[in-house]
């Protein structure tokens, strides 16, 4: 293995580690958010597309207390 191969290996290892860490962190965060949302939203909002989640905010709850 020539010296140049060490640089090649180091470059690809850095990229692999960097993207691997980001991917793992993102998947964990996504799963945690999904779990918490499913536990909180008993109306089945977790099954809804995430983009719809911004449509109705805390005013739902505020309205129900009025």
């Amino acid at each position: 293995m020539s010296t140049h191969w060490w640089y090649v290996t180091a470059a690809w290892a850095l990229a692999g580690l960097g993207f691997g860490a980001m991917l793992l962190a993102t998947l964990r965060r996504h799963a945690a958010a999904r779990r918490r949302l499913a536990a909180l939203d008993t109306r089945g909002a977790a099954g809804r597309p995430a983009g719809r989640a911004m449509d109705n905010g805390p005013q739902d709850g505020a309205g129900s207390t009025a």
Partner: protein
Amino acid sequence: MLALGIPWALAFSPPDWQQGETVRIMYVHVPMAWLSMAGYAALALASASALIWRHPLADLFAREISPVGAAVTALCLATGSLWGRPMWGTWWVWDARLTSVLVLFFLWVGHAALVRAFDDDERGARAGAILAVIGAINLPVVKFSVDFFNTLHQPASVARLGAPGLHVDLLYPLLACALGFTLLFAALVLARTRAAVMEKRIRQLQLAQARRRDGGQGGAAA
């Protein structure tokens, strides 16, 4: 795409006649460089649309893309250093290309830090959007730095007017890796944005629950 591109780049593409096996760093360094610039263009566009149309999703997208963009730019700088050491005999030179990419890295990190620095998310997003839009001035500086200045870094060999300067044996695996890393970058940013939307919904639900509790207690006291 990466399952195709990585073995192609590391095992099946030929070594360069001048650089030898070291050319295989190109297949990771160049996609990182393209992504750092294309990602910043996406950040600037999202920030401009957030400033003009006040779309909340554009703010969330900008907030979530900046850490990924900063990491990709850091990888571009690190892999460039690892390529420069055997080829130029140095890890770093203060030439126009390297310095402008370092500025791009600081802009990414600055944006990621700025949007998280305020208690009020909206103010943070607005400050970050202004920084992102102003920082877009750096993109043509990065792109044309090798043409306008005398740099140790080589001029563009793929994204240039006329035919690419790379032989197809090197060009095709490079394009495969670039497409694979681009899809991975997009998937990461979209998954982060989706998680951020869900977290926002969680905060709203918690707030609504707290209000309901407060309302219930108030009613009982009355």
